């Protein structure tokens, strides 16, 4: 019995504890990301934003959550019930499990696996299922159109995301995410991060993650002017809330991936004492917050893309360019004998 406790139960409990340590702050972050978005957009549009519930509207996300929780779950008569309810769960779960391999600080990672980069790529490519299944199971025109758009869009932009990840891997010489962060450590601090030598890829990656998370200006799957609310038209109550949470958790996740690949993860921007006193996880959070600000900034600024232009950008601009850049980077590394061992 004691053996059973030592070998199986205790490690299992520790892992569950670690998972809760990641998931609970993440959900709080998602709740406050919605407030952050509304406040930032309000300031950009000379409004006040939510300011009634709690001081400065700080309790607004909780009020929203409670409201959604007490609404009625409506399942349309013609819908495929199992898949209809499965789809939001898939979206939500996929946006959580990717966090298993994200390193928050040196050694602060749930699963430090060797193929971390590939794992993230695999999980982000699965995100399309929640949306496409939701659209089909709703058995309704607008959700179906939204789902088809989303499937085509996410598959297209994944290709260039893949090539961007390959370039970073070529430079870092490892698929391990902690290893990728450590490869950006150096005397120059901020200038050692991969976004300096790979600046064009950084831009491509950022635009692609906007498309991958279905955010403005690529939010065609839920374009409210044309498709009511796209794939989530028929959803209400907690099913809708799960889509919402999943979408925002995905935004944070993609910003975290971008931080790890290009912005040096938990590393401080310079090796000065003031900066190194601040723990790495705070740096990681600050970088994610900056990227999320850009997400919101883009939403408040740019008009929506037309669908054919979206496809043109993905296949005719990003794909050839990122493919070329992979070849150029590989050639550079081999020619100057800088291939990481």
């Amino acid at each position, binding site marked *: 019995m004691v053996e059973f406790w030592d070998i*199986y139960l205790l490690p299992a409990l520790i892992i569950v504890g670690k998972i809760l340590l990641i998931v609970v702050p993440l959900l709080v972050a998602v709740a406050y990301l919605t407030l952050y978005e509304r406040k930032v957009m309000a300031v950009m549009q000379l409004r006040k934003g939510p300011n009634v519930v709690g001081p400065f509207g700080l309790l607004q996300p909780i009020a929203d959550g409670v409201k959604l929780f007490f609404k009625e779950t409506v399942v349309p008569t013609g819908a495929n019930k199992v*898949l209809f309810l499965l789809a939001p769960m898939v979206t939500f779960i996929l946006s959580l499990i990717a966090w298993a391999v994200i390193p928050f600080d040196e050694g602060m990672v749930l699963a430090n*696996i*060797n*193929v971390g980069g*590939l*794992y993230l*790529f*695999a999980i982000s*490519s*699965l995100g*399309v*299922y929640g949306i*496409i*299944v939701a659209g*089909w199971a709703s058995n309704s025109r607008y959700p*179906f159109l939204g*789902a*088809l758009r989303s*499937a*085509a869009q996410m*598959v297209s932009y*994944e290709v260039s995301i*893949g090539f961007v990840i390959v370039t970073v891997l070529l430079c870092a010489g490892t*698929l391990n995410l902690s290893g990728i962060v450590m490869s950006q450590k150096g005397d120059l601090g901020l200038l050692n991060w991969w976004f300096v030598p790979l600046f064009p890829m950084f831009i491509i990656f950022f635009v692609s993650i906007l498309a991958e998370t279905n955010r403005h200006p690529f939010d065609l799957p839920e374009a409210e002017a044309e498709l009511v609310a796209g794939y989530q038209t028929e959803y209400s109550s907690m099913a809708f809330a799960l889509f919402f949470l999943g979408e925002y958790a995905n935004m944070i996740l993609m910003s975290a991936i971008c931080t790890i690949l290009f912005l040096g993860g938990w590393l401080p921007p310079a090796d000065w004492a003031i900066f190194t006193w601040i723990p790495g996880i705070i740096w990681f959070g600050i970088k994610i917050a900056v990227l999320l600000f850009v997400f919101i900034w883009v939403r408040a600024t740019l008009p929506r893309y037309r669908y*054919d*232009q979206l496809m*043109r950008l993905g296949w005719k601009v990003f794909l050839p360019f990122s493919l070329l850049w992979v070849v150029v980077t590989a050639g550079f590394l081999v020619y100057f004998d800088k291939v990481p061992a």
Partner: protein
Amino acid sequence: MIISTIAFYLFAALTIASAFMVISAKNPVHSVLYLILAFFNSAALFVLLGAEFLAMILIVVYVGAVAVLFLFVVMMLDINFAELRQGFLQYLPIGGLVGIILLIELILVVSGWVLTPDAIKIGMETAPLVSNLTNTEQLGQVIYTQYAYLFQIAGMILLVAMIGAIVLTNRKRPGVRKQNIARQVYRRPEESMAVRKVEPGQGV
């Protein structure tokens, strides 16, 4: 480890069960979803074998891309499910015959499989362990160093197949209004705009 044994049997059973559901599900969309479940469980089996790179590639390529396109096509099919059920008994004899022939062939092939003594001897020896390399690096060394040319040829064949498919299906339709981005960008106000003084009550 008892846990990994239990995990193996769980994933293996799920793989077989979902593979069976792929062919027996009435609704083709459900079939594709079961196919995805089967891919997932096979990926889990790869992880149990220690081949994490293959597991991830299986998910990225098959679940992330191929199955999405399957689903995409299958969802747009216009199928009458009642009609689909009617044909089942009608085609059962032919389908069953084909299945039985395939089964017999498989049994004949597997039972007739003879290994030479040398091959058995090689199989008995343990492979040299290169423990300090991850299996991503090992695969890379085999594919990109040892079999680099074959790998390139395989890639070229796939590329040719892709271009062939595009050429065969691409139709040039006259009269399609396409957006020419370069022309739009290079358009100057002088070419496309004219400012006229319009007399009141006369029009242009």
